[in-house]
């Protein structure tokens, strides 16, 4: 495994917060806050894939939507490197300021059936971002679109067809081609393979890996499926109730997790081998409610290692080995179980 190293990260997120107000009553008074994202920091290097993983409501999608500025963050910095190498804080920009940066960040969506306009041909769908960004010459655009189709391994004969003629996997290839049209510096992929059948999912995972090697792409991969995450990521950040609880290089996170939530998450994944019917850690209760999270460590009510201190003290995300950070008061003393690799 090669971990790309470049001094300057493509994206650096610092202390990101997104709180949604809870309004009640006739006057819509704010009676509380949902802390969907609560002090999240990470960075992604050029050519790297960072996966944000966690269960529903953990804040992974809200984080990615803040980065794309589909929504405005409550506070924090989102430093994005533009083509001149300058870091621009996307968090503070208005619509006009964002426009030149939009082309640098692209998105691959989860649902290939609803994310493509059914009235546009494939050529129009992939060519649209080129046109919007000022590529007026039809011939030039056609050449570029044909190149993009080749990149995602679709026959050029498909150019004038409409999305309904394609399977889920083919549509996801079209979505990837469109995302690549403007040579973006960052691609945010939110659950890009979770709606696909297994036999097709593998093709798209491989395509994303190949394109990254070929074009030096940088991915922020948002997913709930740890198996897929293992196959795509250089590094992984695990979120729980709006916070990152652990982040590490992929292999390290899977083989030697340091946060009890990561351990439980890994042990809950069904392994496709009946001879390995795992001795599972079955967590009690439900995922913490981000509008009313437990005090102290958000995970403590479900944690079998929790002590009195965990109920009151908020653990900070602390680096315990280079590149491996964890927010658990007992991280140093616990010896947790990961999943064996390569067997």
């Amino acid at each position, binding site marked *: 495994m090669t971990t790309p190293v470049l001094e300057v990260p493509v994206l650096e997120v610092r202390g990101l917060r997104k709180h949604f107000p809870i309004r009640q009553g006739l006057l819509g008074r704010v009676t509380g806050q949902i802390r969907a994202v609560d002090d999240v920091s990470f960075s992604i290097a050029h050519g790297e894939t960072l996966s944000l993983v966690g269960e*529903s409501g953990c804040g992974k999608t809200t984080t990615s939507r803040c980065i794309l500025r589909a929504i405005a963050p409550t506070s924090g910095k989102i430093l994005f490197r533009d083509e001149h190498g300058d870091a621009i804080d996307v968090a503070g920009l208005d619509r006009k300021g964002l426009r030149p940066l939009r082309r640098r960040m692209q998105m691959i969506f989860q649902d290939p059936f609803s994310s493509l306009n059914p009235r546009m041909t494939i050529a129009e769908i992939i060519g649209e971002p080129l046109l919007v960004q000022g590529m007026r010459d039809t011939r030039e655009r056609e050449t570029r679109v044909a190149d993009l189709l080749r990149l995602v391994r679709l026959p050029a004969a498909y150019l004038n067809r409409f999305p309904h003629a394609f399977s889920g996997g083919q549509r996801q290839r079209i979505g990837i081609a469109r995302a690549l049209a403007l040579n973006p510096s960052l691609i945010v992929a939110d659950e890009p393979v979770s709606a696909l059948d297994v*036999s097709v999912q593998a093709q798209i995972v491989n395509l994303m890996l190949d394109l990254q090697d070929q074009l030096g792409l940088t991915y922020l991969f948002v997913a709930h499926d740890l198996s*897929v995450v293992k196959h795509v990521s250089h590094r992984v950040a695990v979120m729980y109730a709006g916070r990152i609880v652990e982040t590490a290089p992929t292999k390290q996170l899977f083989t030697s997790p340091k946060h009890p939530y990561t351990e439980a998450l890994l042990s809950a994944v069904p392994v496709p081998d009946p001879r390995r019917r795992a001795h599972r850690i079955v967590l009690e209760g439900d995922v913490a409610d981000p509008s009313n999270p437990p005090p102290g460590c958000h995970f403590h009510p479900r944690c079998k290692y929790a002590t009195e201190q965990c109920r009151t003290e908020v653990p900070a995300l602390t680096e315990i080995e280079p590149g491996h950070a964890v927010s658990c008061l007992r991280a140093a003393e616990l010896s947790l179980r990961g*999943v064996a690799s390569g067997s």
Partner: protein
Amino acid sequence: MAEPILQVRGLSTYFFADEGVVRAVDGASFDLYPGRTLGIVGESGCGKSVTARSILRIVERPGRIVGGEILLRRHSGQVVDLVTLPSDGSAMRQIRGGEIGLVFQEPMSSLSAFHTVGVQLIEAIRLHSPLSKKAARARAIELLALVGIPRPAHRIDAYSFELSGGLRQRVMVALALAAEPHVLIADEPTTALDVTTQAQILELIARLQRERDLAVILITHDMGVIAEMADDVVVMYLGREVEKGPVDAIFHAPRHPYTQSLLRSIPSVLAEPRARLATISGSIPHPLARPAGCPFHPRCPDAMPGRCDADVPVEVSFADNHVTACHLYTEPVA
């Protein structure tokens, strides 16, 4: 092994659409035993859910069972062929819920939002047994406790939208078991759930099975869930059974090229980071355009031209009830 409680023989369910006939299930045969779990696995359009709906006789039009038998050994010991019963007759209504319980994928849409959990449970209980309202309520609270809902006496008056996804799915399991059926059909019971909640629900189903000697049909697209839960497995592709057998044989000695390819293409937490996956070429054909011969032949690495694209393979049996329908194995095996 005990007598099977359910035997499906040559079940075929077709959908007669304007554009043509979709052979959603085309000759499924399997046995289900008390205390055991039969996993039916496959990708979209393979017919796994239509198989379940056929057993319960809730196939919607333009779908129709066109052939085969579904033999259920009833509580009384009498064996009936469900295919011959009227789908909305009293016998079938007694069997649905009463003798065969059902858990669906989406607990939000299968529970009523307008009635409390208790009202729905009490209705299900009284539908199949002559209890008073009060006794049924006590029974409902017992059931909620059985499926691991904390503070059941309080939660019985909750509405489904007040519960988390995991608790809702537990209520679904309680509803399915309200009339003490001997057979439970779980159709993608954990697909909409998070992985830690999935682990809770799978554990719950396994525990209830042990306690009540339930025969379970588990329908899923997830090979991991199958490996974890099933004793016997049926692998389906485009309406046809391609391979079936004991879970260990399916995973460790698969014979059909589809099963083999499917197993290789599954991402795994045990893989090396960033390992490329083995792929199956192409995509699943549209159900109206099912390939002739073996439906898998256009994607099959071992396809034999002139054979696989012409003749439908017949099932070949091996030791240990391991069966596959593939021309690679057409020689009779002693």
